[in-house]
């Protein structure tokens, strides 16, 4: 223990086949995740930011093997998850948990909260029913559902959106996971409630900093900034920039990061109306027929000849990784 990083992702790819092949020809693939690698230490927190179709959610699902990868390796505490059979994988499930975007869709509407969280202990531990009840009560209190006894016999529909997300968080941390992935944890919630959940996630993060590695997925880099230290910007299945969130916001290097950050509405009219804008052109191209070379080149204001031919590699520039020819000789 402690010798390897908690999570190591190596050249992970996930291609979806679309359309049918005719005599082996004309097979088309959507390269939802295309060669992504990173490592994350215990106590580390990584945000994955991107727009729809960037592959951020697919990547999370592949890491947890909720989707089978096309190729690549993922090590959790030194164990390659992609080499495990179903039985071995199930044993490891408690160690890796996910919080989903829509709490209503990820809670069984016909079960009470006691059952929803209690089931986790029933499946993965051998503790008695009395003990399970105690553990569930502890967890509910921990995620701010107080008094916890009041919530045990409720159904998900009887809770507000924020309370439901708290139940999902309680379930995810029930068995002290080593890896916790939150996929758009607040985007289904109202603005005034979002802050409460962000605060809760931060509290849990600080409490478990020595045991756990975090990944937060969002389209909103402001949210990532409140929750994570580092971030990866994804565009069409590829990582275009990786570094400290604060630094990327201050000085984005990749033209796509620049565009993304200058597009975010600033809730202050003075700044919003006087800031410099990166001109935006075009929309995200289709993944079925992505442009040749750098996927961003049709929208890029600094496009050069070689961008149209070859995909730029992810290289180290100062304090981060960038995939853009502007920064290579």
């Amino acid at each position, binding site marked *: 223990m402690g010798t390897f990083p908690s999570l190591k992702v190596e050249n992970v790819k996930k291609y979806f086949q679309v359309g049918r092949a005719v005599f082996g020809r004309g097979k088309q693939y959507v390269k939802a995740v295309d060669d992504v690698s990173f490592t994350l230490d215990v106590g580390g927190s990584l945000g994955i930011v991107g*727009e729809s179709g960037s592959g951020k959610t697919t990547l999370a699902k592949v890491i947890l093997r909720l989707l089978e990868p096309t190729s690549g390796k993922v090590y959790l505490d030194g164990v390659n998850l992609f080499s495990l059979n179903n039985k071995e994988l199930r044993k490891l499930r408690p160690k890796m948990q996910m919080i989903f975007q829509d709490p209503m869709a990820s809670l069984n509407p016909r079960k009470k909260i006691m059952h929803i969280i209690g089931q986790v202990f029933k499946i993965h531990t051998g503790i008695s029913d009395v003990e399970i009840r105690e553990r569930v009560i502890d967890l509910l209190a921990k995620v701010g559902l107080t008094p916890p006894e009041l919530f045990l016999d409720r159904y998900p529909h009887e809770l507000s959106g924020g309370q439901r997300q708290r139940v999902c968080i309680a379930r995810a941390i029930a068995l002290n996971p080593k890896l916790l992935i939150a996929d758009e944890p607040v985007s289904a919630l109202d603005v005034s409630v979002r802050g409460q959940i962000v605060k809760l996630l931060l509290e849990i993060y600080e409490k478990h900093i020595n045991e756990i590695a975090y990944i937060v997925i969002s389209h909103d880099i402001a949210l990532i900034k409140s929750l994570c230290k580092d971030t990866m910007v994804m565009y069409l299945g590829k990582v275009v920039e990786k570094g400290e969130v604060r630094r990327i916001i201050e000085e984005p290097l990749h033209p796509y990061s620049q565009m993304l950050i200058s*597009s975010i509405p*600033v809730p202050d009219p003075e700044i919003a109306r006087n800031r410099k804008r990166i001109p935006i052109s075009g929309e995200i191209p289709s993944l079925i027929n992505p442009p040749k070379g750098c996927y961003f080149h049709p929208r890029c204001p600094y496009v050069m000849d070689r961008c149209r031919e070859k995909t730029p590699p992810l290289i180290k520039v100062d304090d981060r990784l960038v995939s853009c020819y502007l920064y290579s000789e």
Partner: protein
Amino acid sequence: MNDSRILEISNLKTYYYTSRGVVRAVDGVTLDLRKGESLAIVGESGSGKSTLAFSIMRLLPDNARIIDGSIWLYPEKIDLVRLSNDDMRKVRGRRIGMVFQDPMTFLNPVMRVGDQVAEAIMYHHGCTQKVARKRAVELLERLRIPDASNVALRYPHQLSGGMKQRVIIAIAISCNPEILIADEPTTALDVTVQAEVLELLRGLIHELGMSLILVTHDLGIVAEICDRVAIMYAGKIVEIAETYSLYKSPKHPYTVGLLKAVPRIHESNSGVGGIRGSPPDLVNPPAGCRFYPRCPFVFEKCLGEEPPLIRVNNDRAVACWLMM
């Protein structure tokens, strides 16, 4: 001041009749819109902001009723609430246009997009299809759709989200309405596309001299394009002010909390905390001020009596007992 008014809503109440009881979605809203201004109506889900917008257009579902109040359209001062259906149809599209949140649900999936734009022009101007189609292509070009004459021949599913939203905007402005109502126009779009559509919308409003009512939950968008902001909570307006002064010094505790809850990329620790509790059930809203169960400054008076929306200075009105 009064001459520049183009729309005046007074004490509007729109209720939904459901199996759970009467939902008081818009409960006594008074508001005016001036010529050429962009007014934002900001609120969370269930605040009644969309119901307010749909009430102005009289496009409410069957179980909703406008039970009280008036919506005056100037300069004739006609009351839209009491207008016949036929007359209302002449107002919709020609005098008030609307942009909807989800472009896929509001476009006809089996009709070419150019024809959908042309349809509105033919209906209101009584011109031939040929003329209307030509004008439709011009409009699409104006919305910076590349290769507009070709795009006009396509069906909605062949277009991206941003393109579809531009088609919706083209339909809304096709008859040069005086007022444009946009209900969450960019919520279904990605941020980079959102920025582009907003930029476009801002330019159009300016060019065509339209007044805009922007319904949104996003205080970031409002800061970019609106002149005035009305904050709605649980069916009521709690604060209305000029954009700059609202962001600089919000007065109502809900506005203060909402502005704090918005994460800002250039500030640390913003957006953490939020407002305790969650919005009330509008079948059975709290007596007194509807915000009191969540308010950090609550005192006795708030529980018993509802605060009226009081003008505190030239450009601001607040509904809070702290201000009195």
